């Protein structure tokens, strides 16, 4: 057992967890932040993407213990005072989701993308940046559209 102290979505938290616990397990099972999804067992799908110390990581491929002392942002951090984040609005308006399972990871990856690459993103850049995020439903066209629109508004 380790005590992991992190700042999650702006709040200081301290959780007792097994050393082998993945960050995604602690987020979902101990902190009830179930917006972060698990879509695969092979570190490939990106449904679990959260921001750790400001950058996108796969929370299924990181131990919670590795995040001790870190700042974590999940999909739940984006909406403020009942208002959706511009990237969430853009996914809604552009029909950037169907079942929605991949969406939290897509949106956190999109937020990371804008922070690193700026608000003006072309389709090629967006598609390359999405190489670690898999969607079973949409065919990506509307996801790319949504990210382009959301980025411009961030």
């Amino acid at each position: 057992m380790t005590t992991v102290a992190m700042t999650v979505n702006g709040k200081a938290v301290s959780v007792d967890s097994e050393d082998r616990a993945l960050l995604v397990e602690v987020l979902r099972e101990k902190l009830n932040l179930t917006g972060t999804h698990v879509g695969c067992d092979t570190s490939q799908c990106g449904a679990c993407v959260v921001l750790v110390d400001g950058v996108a990581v796969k929370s299924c491929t990181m131990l919670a213990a590795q995040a001790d002392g870190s700042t974590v942002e999940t999909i739940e951090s984006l909406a403020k005072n009942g208002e959706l984040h511009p990237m969430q609005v853009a996914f809604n308006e552009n029909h950037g989701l169907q079942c929605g399972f991949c969406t939290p990871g897509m949106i956190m990856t999109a937020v990371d993308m804008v922070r690193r690459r700026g608000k003006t993103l072309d389709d090629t850049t967006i598609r390359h940046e999405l190489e670690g995020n898999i969607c079973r439903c949409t065919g990506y066209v509307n996801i790319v559209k949504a990210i382009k629109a959301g980025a411009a508004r961030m």
Partner: protein
Amino acid sequence: MHETRYHRPSSLDEAAKILSASADGRYLSGGQTLIPTMKHRLAEPTDLIDLTRLAELKGISESGGALTIGAATTHAEVASSDAVRKAIPALAALAGKIGDPAVRHKGTIGGSIANNDPGADYPAAALGLGATIHTSKRAIAADDFFKGMFTTALEDGEIVTKVSFPIPTKAAYEKFHNAASRYALTGVFVAVTKGGDVRVAVTGAGASGVFRAGGIEAALSSTFAADAIGGVAIDSSDLLSDIHGSADYRANLIKVMAERAVAAIA
């Protein structure tokens, strides 16, 4: 995943001590190979010793005609480093093509070199540029470091601390991605050293991991042009054959990737 104990040492010495005191410990860097392996129960270390916060493994610097990168430097840091982009742009570009953004934010050069996956990108750069791999015990030439699939010259407990790349006159890397995993189905690193030697390293294709393509090196040494490669015979008997591509397909890819790399810099 099996149970394990996580440690965060504050020095190289402490890291080595924890490892030698553990029943079956492993160093942990970015975890982008080790954690998936543990999730599949293909590795079950009793202890994980996190190297990523050690100051000794950090930093990128240039001196004496070589670019030195600390083992705990992430792929994203290498890809976006002004020093790397200026000294060896092919290396920055290679780092930027590893996996995806989230993998690049965690995965490290030291972890990649130590792991020596047959489809990994950094081993091609290390061998192609004739790098020196510095460890907690010694310095090892890349030509002596990679010993076959997932096998290196590292001894038990030995830690990769940094990798020094001699700055070449020119270099380029061309990778044919496995569309699903993003690893190299075949990747070819071509470099012309300051001394005028041509070095060509191939990843993704060899049944024993990364290797130098002597035939292509010889052809390019006499004429450094893409069309010098067409006539080189590649022996496919030592190449990988799997559901992603046969040995003959990979033999052809080696030439095509080498031609593209040379065309980019000739």
